């Protein structure tokens, strides 16, 4: 064995047995330091015959690399050992660093969900003002003065005679006034009722109005659209029924009930929406206001619907009292984070 090879074996053995980083450093100095054995072999090299120089030089290089690599490996070993010793004492059951989490209001979440479904069904959004004329709120919706369904008792009036809209159906009129058919819109918004406030009634509530006017729109289309929407919302296995009802501005008119085991009401039918085919008198009122016959009821037909968002949110989130929605108690809001 060449003395260099012996030197290598000795060095590797000492590196392997170095107990800590200080001992390892001593080994490094002993072999690779300026006065170290390997460095001295560099001096010895100069004295060798020419023909041996490349051979010994190559060997010396290999030895130096082997020792250096072994030291590095040993250093890495010590570092890993030190690190695992350090983390061994960490109590990983300690709580994670806190991040403040915000939340969307449950009504916003309800609206987002409903709007998301309607958008997939090809409805665009529309809007109208909260403060409305009586004409938009009642007359145009086939509810003339002295009609039993024109409930002034339940309507908030402003000093100038305008009203706070009692339903978002006003947006049906606003939309048809400003654009020609076909029209396919939903209008989320607030509505107001002069009503005693209790667990299911509040002065202000939220609705989504829907309107589709086109050629030959029928009750079958209305059924298909709202069944799709309600199945998306309540699940495919929810039962849905349409029940004849009366609204002045639709005819025929229906209320829609949903029954689902997933809901707290279980086997009971729960009313979730009102809907119907746009009454020809509504088209006639719109045309009169527009001054044309864009909505001639002989040519166009349509369906309209209204959904109570507070009510749907109460049903879906199991909220027992509508007043929670306006109190903004963080203990309530954070439940919906």
């Amino acid at each position, binding site marked *: 064995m060449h003395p260099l090879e012996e030197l290598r074996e000795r060095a590797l053995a000492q590196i392997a047995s170095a107990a800590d980083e200080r001992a390892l450093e001593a080994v490094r100095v002993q072999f690779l330091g300026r006065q170290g054995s390997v460095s001295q072999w560099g001096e010895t090299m100069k004295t060798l015959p020419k023909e041996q120089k490349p051979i010994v030089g190559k060997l010396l290089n290999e030895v130096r690399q082997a020792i250096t690599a072994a030291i590095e490996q040993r250093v890495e070993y010590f570092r890993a050992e030190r690190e695992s010793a350090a983390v061994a004492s960490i109590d990983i059951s300690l709580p994670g660093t*806190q991040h403040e989490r915000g939340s969307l*209001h449950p009504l*916003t979440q309800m609206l987002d969900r409903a709007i998301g479904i309607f958008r997939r069904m090809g409805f665009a959004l529309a809007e109208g003002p909260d403060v409305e004329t009586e004409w938009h709120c009642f007359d145009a919706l086939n509810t003339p003065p002295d009609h039993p369904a024109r409930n002034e008792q339940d309507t908030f009036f402003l000093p100038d005679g305008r009203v706070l809209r009692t339903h978002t159906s006003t947006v049906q009129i606003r939309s048809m006034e400003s654009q020609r058919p076909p029209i396919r819109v939903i209008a989320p918004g607030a509505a107001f009722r002069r009503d005693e*406030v209790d667990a299911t009634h509040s*002065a202000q509530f939220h609705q989504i109005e829907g309107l589709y006017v086109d050629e030959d729109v029928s009750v079958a*289309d209305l059924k298909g659209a709202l069944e799709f929407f309600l199945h998306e919302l309540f699940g495919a296995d929810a039962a849905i029924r349409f*029940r004849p009802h*009366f609204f002045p501005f639709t005819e025929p008119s229906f209320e829609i009930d949903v029954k689902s085991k997933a809901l707290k009401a279980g086997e009971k039918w729960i009313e979730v929406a009102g809907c119907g085919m746009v009454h*020809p008198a509504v088209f006639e009122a719109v045309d009169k206001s527009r001054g044309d016959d864009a909505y001639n009821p002989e040519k166009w037909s349509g369906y309209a619907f209204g959904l109570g968002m507070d009510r749907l949110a109460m049903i879906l989130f199991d909220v027992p009292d509508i007043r929670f929605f306006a109190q903004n108690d963080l*203990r309530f809001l954070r439940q919906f984070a």
Partner: protein
Amino acid sequence: MKFSVNWLREFVDLPLSTEVLTDLLTMSGIEMEQIEQRGGNFDNVIVAQITASKQHPNADRLSVCEVNDGSGNARQIVCGAKNYKTGDKVPLALPGAELPNGLKIRASKLRGVESNGMLCSAIELGLGEEASGLLILSPETKIGAPLREVFPPDTIIDVEITPNRGDLLSHLGLAREIGALSSRAKSRDPVEVSLKVTLRGSSTPLGSAQDDITISALRECPFYSIQRIENVRVGRSPDWLRAKIESVGIRSINNVVDVSNFVMLELGQPTHAFDAAKLRGTINVRLAREGETLLALDGRTYSLRPNQVVIADTERAIGLGGVMGGEESGVSTTTTSVLLESAYFSPGSIRRTARELNLPSDASYRFERGVDPQMILRASKRATAIICEIAGGTAKEMSIAGELPGNPADISLRYERVDRVLGSHIEPQAADGILTCFGLEKANDSSTSVSTSTWKIPSYRRDLQREIDLIEEIARAHGINKIPSADRSRFTASSEADRQYDFESQIRRELVALGFNEARTSALIARGELARASGAVELRNPLTEDHVALRTSLVPGLLAGVARNARAGAERIALFEIGNIFAAMTGEQKRSLAIVLSGNVQSKKSWRGAEYRHFDFFDLKGVLESLFSARADEREYRRTERSGFALAAAISSGEKTIGFVGQLASAEANALDASAPVLVAEVDLAELARTRKTAAAFSEMERHPSIRRDIAMFVPRHVTHADISRVISSGDEPLLERVELFDLFSEKDVAANERQARKSLAYSLTYRGKNRTLTNEEVSAAHARIRERLRREIGAQLRE
């Protein structure tokens, strides 16, 4: 409205089970609200006669009665009621009986006196609302008979009648509808509804138009009739009558008034009985006079308007036509001669009057929905016959004035239109069958083609006015569930409202990501908040003090949220709302965003020793800056005065004011029970949208290294960060990329006066070349120029 199932059965064969009836009604648009079982449940309750009564020896309020229970043995009962006399027949609950209210009857001693049962009131038996005394039965009742025989079991249904269906507001009307619907269910052939009871009517001939009635208000009251009935003995109604009207929630008054109510419940036509002796001269149906008042039967005096119809005699108003009779002219125990009114009042006029006087009545409810003109005289005859029968009256002449409204106009129906509206084919014969069931008659018109038909409308269906009304009837009876659902959609371009919704959703999500909870507050503010919302548009008719005006700002609502949560002990309050606000005076609506912060930066203490301090002005300003997300130097924060705020700044961009941010005065914060500063901001949402980038676009990333140099300086305390930033950027150094303030402190200058007071600021300046690596020399040169400007322009003492 409440209906008695027994009563309905008098007119039509009903489905046997209540469930089937409920389904039938529900699926044809008549919603069942409540079902209640009544009577019948009277085991061990019998009819007894009181044979003697004496004072209880040990109790002032009790009596000891001896009753005949039909067994032949006298029975002793202790009784607390006072309304009976010896000889009266009353219900007796025997020991062992269990009353509908759950009371179990046992033989016992009351104050030392034996009592073998209990004499019952109507309410104890679930037979009426009367609780003040015993239920006195009519003299004909058989002693010892089970009470079940007197009050057979009944089901009372409470159903919602929609406002278009005034014809259903009677037992006859609902029975007719059920008959039509159930005949549909049984058979597709048109079946005529048969009324099992033919109405008994007096044979008195119609009086011709006489001059004892004048109608001056023909538009409001096109037809009026008066039937005179003499020798009437006003008194208690017989049991069957009381039971009938009380079963559907009408209180018994006396036999004449009860008959009037009975006929209304039976046939739907309200009638009214006047005491003939109280009237002077002839009857005039006229509009009220300016300033006229009337004491109505409800005991209240109403001031009338000249558009309201009154029934008047020669001297004064004696009733509010179609709404309520007058107190003075009403039937009382002294009445012997009755004038029975039956008339047609126009729906609009009645509705207006009832609304203006806030006086809805059973009569006005029916008149405003339209009564059946063909029923007016039938009802009068029916009531007259019963009054004569039970109150011993003699029917005299009937007077009429005006003309009955004509029948509704014929309506033609296109069968193809039915299919188009429903989206499903209905055979013309099936459609005809349905309409015939509902009492419509197909006109025998030879010109009618096979594709259309013309229909005569019954007098009671004034809601059927045009083709679509017939189509609705067909849909209702055919069954909506038989119509197949169709899937019909179309491509729809997004609208301005879509873009607005998406923008607001984005803002909401950004704020939620920053740890805010979204709030929603009412658009209506309370009286107490009006002081701070000057000019807010007030409601003309608020219902409560909580909702009186339109909010001009979202802030009051959010501050109420702060108060609620502070009181609930919340450590960290961070709320925002996006909603409509309404301009003062005009009520003009716009979208607004408001944010409030109060309490600790973190909602809980942490073992990490993390930040635990109160929110301050700069926390909220930072939130706003993150929302604005365009170049900060496009916006300006200017100090302003704001009532209720200790510190307030107006935020502007160019000429436009975007909003404000501030800190509440501590007095205001204390009023909210907030234990930490309350920071508030409100921003115009449209202006906020304008500050934001409309579309994301790529820009080249820096490829060359930057060089950072710091500047630390003392400046007089009045010099602001904005002043310093302006000086630094005023040189337009092309290499200067970014300036960041990283340290700030004010000297606690006890000795120095205000003018000498200084503060220290330290900035980090970043230099970078766009296309090359900068040399130290050029950065140093630029940095030196900036330092020099700071020294020269604001007297900064630069620190090394």
